[in-house]
């Protein structure tokens, strides 16, 4: 089982003919993702098979609008690769066309644009992941995003993270220990994002096949703390946390637009303390993420045996 996406998910690519869109569509098709169409306004009615050096395993029909694509393909998910000035419009178009799961990879979307998107999103049934995120993967079934598929392994740990490569790092540690993942959600590092930690934790908590949750946070904002309060009250599955940025100086943006300690708020120490007080095992060093999850799963086995 999995959350948000699985092998039945029909995926559109907004911005399929751009260089990023082309490169990652090829990789998604190779992974086995059911890509059913692409959107590039003005190129509707054609088929696209990549470009020199990047060949799709099969041609993909191109549409002028998301609405056209949904009518023709019954798509229920969309991934967005369009440049920052057009990203908010692309998300709004996907919402308006009834797409259930929208994943925006684009980095650099202005906050003012995202405020409007967020407001529209709250009035809809759509789920937005991102922007500025690596995407979502249900190992062995469906990869929507830019993560390297081969480091993942199907299994029982739900992973949610604000980071890209740090998530790959954690996933690889799990896979090396033969611990698989139910779904990995990269929620992105921007100040306004569609899916927050708390949303991802809810999905994993309700998914019967997810047995443990790994939450990888970082400095800035209070989203980790909010999720921790929820976990304390409603989540019985073991949750393992890591917060990056213990050594980050205040007032400086650490790469991600949202990773900043401002007015003394959002430090790694505060977050770790808040998580621990809600019963979450917080890993001290990033090298031990995999081992900590393993210990939590082993502990789970012991308690189940005792219960029997």
């Amino acid at each position, binding site marked *: 089982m999995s959350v948000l996406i699985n092998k039945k998910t029909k995926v559109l690519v907004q911005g399929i003919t751009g260089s990023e869109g082309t490169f990652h569509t090829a990789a998604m098709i190779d992974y086995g993702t059911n890509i059913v169409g692409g959107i590039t306004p003005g190129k509707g009615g054609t088929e696209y098979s990549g470009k020199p050096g990047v060949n799709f395993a099969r041609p993909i029909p191109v549409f002028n609008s998301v609405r056209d694509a949904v009518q023709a393909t019954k798509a229920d998910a969309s991934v967005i690769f369009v440049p*920052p*000035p057009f990203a908010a419009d692309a998300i709004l178009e996907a919402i308006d066309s009834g797409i259930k799961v929208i994943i925006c990879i684009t980095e650099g*979307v*202005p*906050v*003012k644009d995202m*405020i*409007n998107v*967020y*407001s529209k999103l709250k009035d809809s049934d759509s789920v937005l992941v991102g922007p500025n995120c*690596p995407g979502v993967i249900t190992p062995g079934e469906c990869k929507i995003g*830019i*993560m*390297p598929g081969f*480091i993942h392994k199907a299994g029982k740990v739900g992973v949610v*993270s*604000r*980071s*890209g*490569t*740090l*998530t*790959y*790092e954690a996933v*690889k*540690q799990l896979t*090396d220990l033969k611990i698989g993942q139910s779904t990995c959600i990269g929620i992105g*590092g921007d*100040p*306004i994002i569609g899916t927050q930690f708390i949303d991802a934790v809810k999905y994993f908590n309700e998914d019967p096949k997810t047995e443990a949750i790994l939450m*990888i946070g*970082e*400095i800035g*904002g*209070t*989203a980790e703390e*909010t999720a921790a309060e929820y976990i304390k009250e409603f989540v019985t599955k073991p949750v393992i946390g*890591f917060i*990056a*940025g*213990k*050594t*980050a*100086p205040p007032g*400086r*943006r*650490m*790469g*991600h*637009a*949202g*990773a900043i300690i401002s*007015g*003394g708020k959002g430090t*790694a120490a505060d977050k770790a303390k808040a998580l621990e007080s809600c019963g979450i095992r917080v890993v*001290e*060093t*990033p*090298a*031990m993420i995999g081992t900590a999850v393993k210990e939590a799963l082993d502990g789970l086995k012991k308690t189940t045996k005792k219960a029997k």
Partner: protein
Amino acid sequence: MKIHEYQAKDLLRRYDVPVLKGKVVFSAEEAGRIAHEEFISQGSKVIVVKSQIHAGGRGKGTIYDVNTGNEMQVEGKTVKGVNVLVGGNVADKAFQYAGAMLGNKLITIQTGEAGSIVRRMLIEDGCSIAKEYYASILLDRTCGKNIIMVSTEGGMEIEKVAEETPERIIKEHVDPKIGFQDFQARRLAFGLGLSGDAFKSFIPFIKKLVNAYYELDCSMLEINPLVLTTDNKFVALDAKINFDDNAIYRHPEFIDLRDIDEEDPLEVEASKFDLNYIKLDGNVGCMVNGAGLAMATMDMIQNAGGSPANFLDVGGGANVERISNAFRIMMSDPNVKAVLINIFGGIVRCDKVADGIITALKNVKVDVPVIVRLDGTNAVEGLATLKNSGMDFKVAANFEEAANLVAAVFA
């Protein structure tokens, strides 16, 4: 992106937000001349000379001689970051104070011991203050809306007010569907206890301020203090603007407002190559792909007994040129006693990164231990390239080994 007070006020003027008459100057002679020609001879009795640095706390900060470290004085009085000049020959005082401030070091609560060199000053009219207030607009990340905050505690740090007397901060969220409304402006005004002419002056002030925030794509706009003059007019006595970096493309003219003197030279150099580099005080240089992994790597260095010399994210498009520039910039920091390269190949191919590292090492002299950890896409090929280069690397197979190798340097 941060800008100076005088630049922020120039922008606010465009949106009719009331600010005092002022002019930026770059020398003591200019300060004296402008003070005379444009202020005193136009009827000003009081003028203010304000240091223009990006850090806050200027009013309470003190100017020190950049060479001797001695406190600067004019006519037996300590020179502060902001100086109110009144009585006697004000234009001559402006000349003297500006001379004492320029090129010297301003230390405030925000600059730390190192202080900031004063290179620009704002000459501004004085005003007769009845009361000081506070106003700011910024994004509330918890609900994805902008929030307007005002307070009767002007001139204080708002974080301190929030902690000690939170009831003195009045807040209104802006609903993006309908924008900032009049009733919200009134609620803020009544919350501050305003009435009569002061109330009437506040309503248009705050509406214009909100408009400027939106039009300028700010990520933060703070007026502290916001003053009510003795003739019941609201004026922005100070102004702090941060832009949303993601929206700068909509305002290409903002690029000219950047003051690279206020930035670390290595960070300026890194920005030319689109590298995300932040200089820190530690002794282990690190080069990583991805912001989250970079932060985690810095944390790991500290756990291993070192301390990070920098944050450096080489990003997703790491090619040979990028890697070698990143390496050169990282090594320009004399405090670096060891280097850790931590790359997790996703889109980035580790073999390309390895090529970049070798090219960099041929061009940059490195006499400190270099620890390399490559994992993910084409890691095996990358590690083979490093091994076959004949150069001296300490190669780590994973995060844990990398940590141990760093620890060994400091053992």
